[in-house]
């Protein structure tokens, strides 16, 4: 008798567990613009997926598509996900903005989250992005301390506001230490092309920069910097493995907390449209361990990071002069987010003409 009860209880437990997981499994799907092995942008999004999966366990089921070209293919990929039973779809590149909104209109019951965009045409579309420029400011501070030449090289991808914002933030950080600090910029016109990025790094080093920072996703610049014996900053992920004696720090995009929060909201039925621009404070932007620098520089970097993280300091606080010499922000004035999100001008100290 006892045995029967036990086995019944066990069966019931198995049954209820089985049905629970079958019912509750929420499907979260991700679309990446690059390969998950880029060690940069898509790699970090995929890490976010894995973090979310680990945190939510059986409650969630995941799927992803990598290297989805922006354009007509994106719409099909998103629609395929929507039709295959995904409850929430993360589209992780700017170029997916219109396709995401188009598909969202057709599938009102599916939630869509678009990274780095600004269009939310339907109530089931949310947008999210990170304040990477906060990390750039810390890098600028370190660069000014570490550079003997007083010039850093910046490998940039495309002249969109986010990238311009990063360059400006870097310069402002550096000028807080050395007012004469300069930045040379090379536009690689790609997010991921190890060959081009390596060429850009070499060109910059030949022009006399002794610190390299990048807003492209491959590890090639880090490797070139190592060969030439100068220091560099990583991008999107911790690239210390590719430059153990080279990497000073890296801006790590940590999407995990956001993905956990949003997928959980879908499971709980509390998901709402929003526009999130999280930074260090929210844990979306994390600095990789400070390395290859003297202790005083490290201390300064940590202090700067803490200041930004606590919210007591905004990198875009006046007085700031534009590259053309006109005043942008008066002393103590803080830029509004709108200006930053559409930023198309350099601040003083950038040795480059912004492609217009």
């Amino acid at each position, binding site marked *: 008798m006892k045995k029967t009860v036990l086995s019944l209880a066990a069966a019931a437990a198995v049954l209820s567990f089985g049905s629970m997981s079958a019912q509750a499994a929420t499907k979260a*799907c991700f679309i990446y613009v690059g*390969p*998950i092995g880029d060690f940069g942008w898509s790699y970090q999004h995929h890490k976010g997926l894995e973090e979310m999966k680990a945190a939510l366990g059986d409650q969630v089921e995941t*799927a*992803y*598509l*990598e*290297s989805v*070209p*922006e*354009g*007509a*293919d994106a*719409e*099909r*990929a998103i*629609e*395929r*996900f929507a*039709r*295959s039973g995904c409850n929430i779809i993360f589209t992780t590149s*700017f*170029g997916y903005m*219109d396709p995401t909104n188009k598909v969202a209109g057709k599938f009102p019951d599916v939630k869509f989250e678009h990274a780095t965009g*600004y269009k939310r045409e339907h109530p089931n579309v949310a947008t999210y992005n990170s304040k990477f420029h906060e990390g750039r400011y810390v890098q600028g501070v370190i660069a000014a301390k570490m550079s003997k030449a007083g010039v850093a090289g910046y490998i940039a991808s*495309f*002249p*969109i*506001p986010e990238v311009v914002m990063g360059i400006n933030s870097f310069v402002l950080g550096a000028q807080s230490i050395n007012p004469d600090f300069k930045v040379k910029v090379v536009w690689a*016109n790609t997010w991921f092309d190890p060959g081009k990025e390596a060429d850009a790094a070499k060109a910059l080093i030949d022009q006399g920069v002794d610190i390299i920072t990048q807003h492209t996703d491959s590890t090639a610049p880090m490797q070139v910097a190592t060969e030439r014996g100068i220091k560099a900053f990583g991008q999107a992920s911790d690239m210390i493995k590719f430059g153990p004696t080279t990497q000073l720090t890296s801006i790590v995009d940590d999407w995990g907390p956001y993905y956990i929060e949003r997928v959980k909201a879908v499971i709980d039925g509390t998901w709402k449209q929003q526009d999130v621009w999280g930074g260090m404070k929210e844990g979306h932007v994390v600095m990789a361990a400070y390395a290859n620098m003297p202790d005083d520089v490290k201390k300064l970097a940590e202090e700067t990071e803490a200041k930004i993280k606590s919210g007591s300091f905004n990198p875009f606080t006046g007085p700031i002069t534009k590259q053309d010499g006109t005043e942008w922000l008066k002393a103590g004035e803080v830029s509004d987010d709108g200006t930053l*999100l*559409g*930023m*198309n001008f350099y601040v003083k100290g950038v040795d480059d003409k912004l*492609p*217009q």
Partner: protein
Amino acid sequence: MRIELVKRPEQSKLFSALSPFIALGLTLVAGAIMFSLLGKNPLDALYYYFIDPLREVWSLHELAIKAAPLILIAVGLSVCYLSNNWNIGAEGQFTIGAITGSILPVLFPQFQNWTVLPMMLIMGMAGGAAYASVPAFLKARFNTNEILTSLMLVYVAQLFLDWLVRGPWRNPEGLNFPETRNFHEYAVLPEIWSASGRANWGFVFALVAAVALWFMLSRTLKGFEVKVLGQSPRAGKFAGFSSSKMVFFAFLLSGALAGLAGISEVSGAIGQLRPTISPGYGFAAIIVAFLGRLNPLGIIAAGLVLALSYLGGEAAQISIGVSDKVVRAFQGMLLFFVLACDTLIHYRIRFIGMPAKTGEAAQNV
């Protein structure tokens, strides 16, 4: 034992018909091995690759969207290649066609009526043809290698588009992101049957172009001229055909069709100009042209097969969780086997080393 390829005196009719099926069989076997090695059920994988995308109507629409530019470009290229003109720059002609076709909705957004779309299509064709005329002129006048010039012009076109959408044509309301304004409703190529999916009239253009060119190539004097000049320019000259005129004809025709594909894609499937508007249609179309054996009707089938392999690749990624790399390797296998099996049409395989022995054995018996 040695294996030799011996040229057949004539094309083999049998293998013309059989080779696609042999190729498909070999692909299935090689694919099954690959998927098994990856620990995936090969039958599942092949099902998601080839069958699943055909099961739903919306997916068929997507197939048409993906195949339309491939077919449209490839039929134009077939005329080029048959006439021995190696236009490798369809991607550039596609891009320029998209740009010139977009002039009206981007620069004159206030100008809205039903005449906009036909003008866009014509301007797109004119743009693609004009861009193709550059390598044609260089070849006809200076005997420049058109493979190089047409290929190099692809990069010029792509960078020009890049510059336009980041600079002068950038959407004034777009927060400085690199894209033009969205096309207004009169500038959008309509969907064929919008209740069931989003395939647009671009697919119809592709079918019409393919049938028209098939007719031209197989039933008209012009088609004969194309083939004669392609196979023997000297014989063509005796027949009174001009090879420099043919250079222009082939390039302008294929350029116009690539331009039409470009503006159809932008107007029908994307709705604005962006830094990248093509995942390499102009280059994939070269494969499609040869996959279809340079026959416009064959190209329709080839375009659909290649499009299916893209869609199936996505379905496989989502459903059985293989990576994008595996999907592309499989697509590569398919193309390799198809093109390799076509060798059997012109050659037969001879095994050397064994026949003598078997001959003796036969005598002894």
